[in-house]
């Protein structure tokens, strides 16, 4: 038992280019911190938007929307900046490390954006479980007030910025922007129909710019190096570096900041030292548990948004999960589907009912009670969920389950045919479902 362990930075790291933590304001200033917020006060909204557009920065929360374009959409009126620190996509723990190690970069990014759009307040919506991280942010905020970076205007602007930490209370769906705003506004964290978009009507029905922690923390670095330099590190449609969360059956799990030109092999084998214990990779997930699974023959795919999409999955939140050959994919599917069933907010019928039925069907497959046509029924359920709800949570359940059925259909069929499990008792998921504790025999080699 020990605390989080941080990987050493690569030479081309930007956001976390140092060892250990940089929580004290003086450390951040010594590294050049707050110079960009001060320099940016003289720049017009259009100039900052253009710089962000030129940088090619895309949102790091999961959707990958171009940041400059998003900022440009902000409506007129009393504006707010809201930071999405509700990091909850299984496999993702990079915003947490960023907050623990470089909290002032986030605060400086907030002030730059607030001054650009004329917002007087930022609310950092952080998931409730991140108690230590909320304390780290509050300590950094307190220091920034004492130093005059917050609460009064920087030289060259009349806009004073306040930053507040708003803690969530345990709900994955609050990572979805309209659900997050419902929760911030004091309601159940359920998504709402768009339009109106948050840029027009968000926090307290005001125009709201809502961005992920990593995205906003990157802004001071882009201004420091210039958009042209930042975007030089690029694939066709993605630029800069990404914090990649590496977990699962890998030798050295952790967060690694990599240029978007790197491949999943660079991350898993290069940074992570390959599969743990000398075992063999069965498959990997490139962008959090909602991303379709990829087979090892896709390891040379670049981690960028468009390259991962072309490989048949999505870069999502940059959370890579390595699965070795011991794992039973029926059990894995059940665990993933059960997560989304639990987190469905219940508002849209296809998601609320569909995720529940997906779990029920997968339990039957796992217990050896299903019939062959129930596999087709699972695929049909995916069809009936995808694209039919207000928010992507239902899709986030259907897409990966569909991909497991595509790549591992024989494994599902073996649970029905024999019935037997090709993985056997070594699968690390078996003991999680004691009510189903399996009596299935192992498929003979």
């Amino acid at each position, binding site marked *: *038992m020990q605390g989080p362990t941080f990987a050493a930075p690569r030479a081309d790291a930007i956001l976390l280019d140092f060892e250990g933590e940089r929580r004290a304001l003086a450390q951040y200033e010594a590294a050049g911190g707050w110079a960009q917020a001060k320099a940016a006060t003289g720049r017009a909204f259009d100039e900052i938007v253009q710089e962000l557009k030129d940088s090619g920065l895309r949102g790091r929360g999961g959707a990958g929307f171009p940041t400059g374009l998003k900022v440009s959409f902000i409506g007129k009126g009393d504006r707010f900046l809201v930071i999405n620190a509700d990091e909850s996509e299984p496999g993702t723990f990079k915003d947490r490390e960023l907050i623990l190690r470089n909290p002032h970069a986030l605060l400086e990014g907030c002030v730059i954006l607030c001054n650009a759009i004329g917002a007087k307040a930022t609310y950092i919506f952080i998931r409730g479980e991140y108690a230590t991280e909320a304390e780290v942010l509050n300590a950094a905020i307190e220091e920034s007030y004492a130093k005059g970076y917050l609460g009064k205007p920087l030289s060259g602007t009349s806009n004073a910025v306040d930053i507040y930490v708003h803690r969530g209370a345990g709900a994955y769906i609050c990572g979805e922007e309209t659900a997050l705003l419902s929760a911030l506004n004091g309601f159940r964290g359920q998504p709402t129909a768009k339009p109106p978009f948050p840029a027009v009507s968000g926090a307290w029905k005001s125009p709201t710019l809502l961005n992920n922690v990593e995205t906003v923390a990157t802004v001071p670095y882009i201004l420091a190096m210039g958009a042209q330099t930042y975007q030089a590190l690029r694939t066709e449609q993605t630029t800069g570096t990404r914090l990649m969360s590496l977990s699962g059956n890998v030798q050295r799990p952790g967060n690694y900041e990599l240029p978007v030109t790197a491949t999943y092999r660079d991350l898993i084998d290069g940074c992570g030292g390959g599969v743990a214990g000398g075992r063999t990779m069965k498959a990997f997930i490139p962008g959090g548990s909602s991303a379709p699974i990829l087979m090892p023959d896709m390891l040379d795919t670049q981690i960028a948004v468009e390259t991962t999409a072309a490989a048949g999955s999505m870069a999502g939140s940059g959370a890579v999960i390595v699965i070795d050959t011991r794992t039973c994919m029926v059990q894995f599917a059940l665990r993933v589907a059960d*997560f989304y069933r639990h987190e469905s907010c219940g508002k849209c019928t296809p998601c609320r009912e569909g995720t529940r039925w997906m779990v029920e069907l997968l339990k039957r497959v796992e217990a050896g009670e299903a019939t062959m046509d129930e596999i087709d029924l699972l695929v049909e359920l995916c069809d009936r969920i995808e694209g039919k709800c207000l928010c992507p949570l239902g899709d986030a359940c259907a897409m990966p389950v569909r991909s497991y059925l595509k790549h591992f259909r024989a494994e599902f069929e073996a649970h029905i045919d024999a019935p037997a499990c090709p993985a056997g008792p070594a699968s*690390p998921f078996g003991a999680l479902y004691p009510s189903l504790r399996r009596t299935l025999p192992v498929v003979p080699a």
Partner: protein
Amino acid sequence: MSDSLHDAIQAEIAKYPDRRSAILAALRLAQAKYRWLSPEAFEEVSRCIDLPVAQCVAVASFYDMYFLEPVGEHVVEVCTNVSCALVGAADVVAAFEMELGCSLGSTSADGKVTLRPVECLGGCGWGPVVSIDHRYHEHFTADDVKPVVAGLRTSEGGH
């Protein structure tokens, strides 16, 4: 009415353009005082925020971190999501069940410890992750269970 809870909730309300936004913080503070969201806790939150009890319950019941039933003096939460499960979370759960003599989702007979399953806590590369009284412990193994439970059994409630 407890003045300290009332004052703490008023300080939260002051952060927002609309007092209703302080509901999550108010519920968290009330739970810290009463250990769970008892009817009295809801009454107090309702008075402080000026929101009907039914609305407070509606919000609280949406989220995983509020306890709508009494819990033990300590709360142990084990992440059982995919990344932690791949590196042995099931063994940690089994060790806690054995040591506490209760199954996941229930409280030990002496009322000291509630064992809860939780979804991804955001420590995936440092798993298995266990949260004890809302504080994380990473790289948790089945061997850590015995001393941790012994410590919880002899200490006052902390969540």
